[in-house]
């Protein structure tokens, strides 16, 4: 009885900690939300902290009413989904063969892979490469170059190491091909890591804009974040304004906040959906050690 009482007490401590932590995390989002619904005057006077003042939804009306944002939104969603699938596949293709200790050339492969984690040539060489591959202004340039993250691959491979060898060995003895082992054993057991990496790749693609900035001129293929980047920059460059003797027409603060909301909230919704894959003890039931 004593044990369960103290357990209860401990539970509540954790809850309190989590509430505090949670508040620290969510308050800025509330601030942004409040801003997106406030009048410009209230924002200029810096009166808005957690509660909107002069509530109006003009900013959202402008964003949702502008075809450009809607189009970019759907394109970015499509792009993210495609990218995630491609990247997960590529990562698995790379991680799986490397868990086999007997694989000849394994060390070489490891060296080749690791070097790419650290050595990067810079923007101009990458640009020239894209040009020579005819990938400039091609939507594929937003998918292929980012398809394999070595960091993620290492995470996946570490996870694979955690799956007991005995599973694999018994399958080998049964005469299963390596393709089959991958498909029937490793993939089903790796749901947590797939979910994790899917999230990583998806967020990376959703938030990323620097590749589009460099390689894509066709506005139809701009990811949403690039539009946001351009808008924020337009009103943000006082140096440019001084040089040029004029300043760009200001974008209202509330519109800025609305756009941030618009581009952040969708990806926030992905995680809860993936949570169900982080299930306890899904894997180990199959092994009797």
């Amino acid at each position, binding site marked *: 009885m004593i*044990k369960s009482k103290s*357990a209860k007490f401990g*539970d509540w401590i*954790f*809850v309190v900690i*989590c509430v505090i932590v949670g508040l620290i*995390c969510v308050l*800025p*989002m509330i*601030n*942004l939300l409040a801003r997106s619904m406030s009048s410009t005057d209230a924002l200029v006077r*810096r009166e808005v*902290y957690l509660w909107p003042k002069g509530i109006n939804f003009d900013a959202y009306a402008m964003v949702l009413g502008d075809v450009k944002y809607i189009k970019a939104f759907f394109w970015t969603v499509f792009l993210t989904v495609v990218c995630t699938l491609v990247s997960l596949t590529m990562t698995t*293709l*790379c991680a*799986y*063969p490397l868990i*086999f200790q007997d694989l*000849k050339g394994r*060390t070489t*492969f*490891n060296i*080749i*892979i*690791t*070097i790419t*984690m650290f*050595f*990067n*040539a*810079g923007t*101009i*060489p990458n640009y020239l*490469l894209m040009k020579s*591959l005819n990938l400039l202004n091609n939507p594929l340039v937003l998918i292929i170059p980012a*398809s*394999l993250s070595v*960091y993620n691959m*290492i*995470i996946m491979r*570490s*996870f694979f190491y*955690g799956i007991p060898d005995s599973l694999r060995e018994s399958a080998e003895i049964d005469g299963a091909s*390596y393709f089959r082992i*991958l498909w029937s054993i490793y993939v089903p057991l790796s749901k*947590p*890591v797939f*979910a*994790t990496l899917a*999230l990583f790749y998806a*967020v990376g693609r959703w938030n990323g804009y620097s590749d589009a900035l460099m390689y894509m001129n066709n506005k139809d293929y701009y990811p949403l974040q690039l539009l946001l980047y351009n808008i924020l920059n337009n009103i943000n460059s006082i140096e440019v304004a001084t040089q040029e003797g004029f300043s760009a027409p200001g974008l209202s603060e509330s519109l800025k906040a609305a756009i941030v909301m618009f581009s*952040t909230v969708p*990806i*926030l919704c992905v*995680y*809860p959906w993936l949570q169900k894959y*982080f299930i*306890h*003890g899904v894997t*180990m039931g199959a092994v009797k050690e």
Partner: protein
Amino acid sequence: MKASTKKPSAVQKKQNFGVYMKRYWQLYVLLFLPMLYLLIFKYVPMIYIQIAFKKYSIVESVWNMPWAGNNGFEYFIKAFNNKDFINALRNTLMLNLLDLVIGFPAPIIFALILNELVFKKFKRVIQTVAYMPHFLSWVIIYGLALQIFAPSSGLVNMVLNNFGIEAIPFLNDSKHWVATYIFLGVWQNFGWGSIVYLAAIAGINSELYEAASVDGCGRFKKMWHITLPGIKPTIVVLLVMNLGNILGSGFDRPFAMQNNLVMDVAEVISTFVYKNGIQGLQFSLTTAVGFFQSVICVIFLLLANWISRRLGERGIW
């Protein structure tokens, strides 16, 4: 018992190879696409790394550019002679180490706490909320930080002023700035970083917990003997990779958070390169600094990996 010491004949070697390939060809097929990707998208541009040792010319092809002075090390020497570069180097190291010491355990601790939560719905909500900060760009985060921490118009300091307490220079004094920088880094990352650990915890056999309960283990004993060892491989892998990145520099965070009053601690390698290398069109210098960073990173990675193997863990390979 030793195997036969006779060296296999050429024919036998070929046979062995054939047997080997018959068995393992599928793995090579699987590896083909990733390797092709790496070759094209990572190694081909690497040809340009030799710019670090050459005088860059925007119209010449890489092979025709003249070699830099001092046996090609002219730009490395130039960088190291620059007091600002040395400063940036020191700052990068310092900030990354602090990030590691304070920022690395935070997601782990958070994952452990989350794991202890009894109320499932609450746990889900907190999880989702905790990784919200990750999605804000650093420009926005700094803007928010100013609203809260600025000396005269920041929320915290205005409240302090009301009580007659002097303003705390969160962002305008070098030491305080470092603390704020690290804190914001932790804030932004702990929720997101905990995802990997939660996935790893999910992979621990639940029977182990049941068995421990039967044995009468309390919550902390379970954490210490089951959960932590269970995610130890993940922790080690990530630690090794983070150590390997000790001289790497993100750009967005320091760039957004810099201000002129704290530049003595806020200038890091990436911002230094941006101002001097890219804006100044000094491509060779930029590449040289990048090359230096890469070499150091590899060395650290190998070191960290070796240490982890020494301690009985599997390395990242």
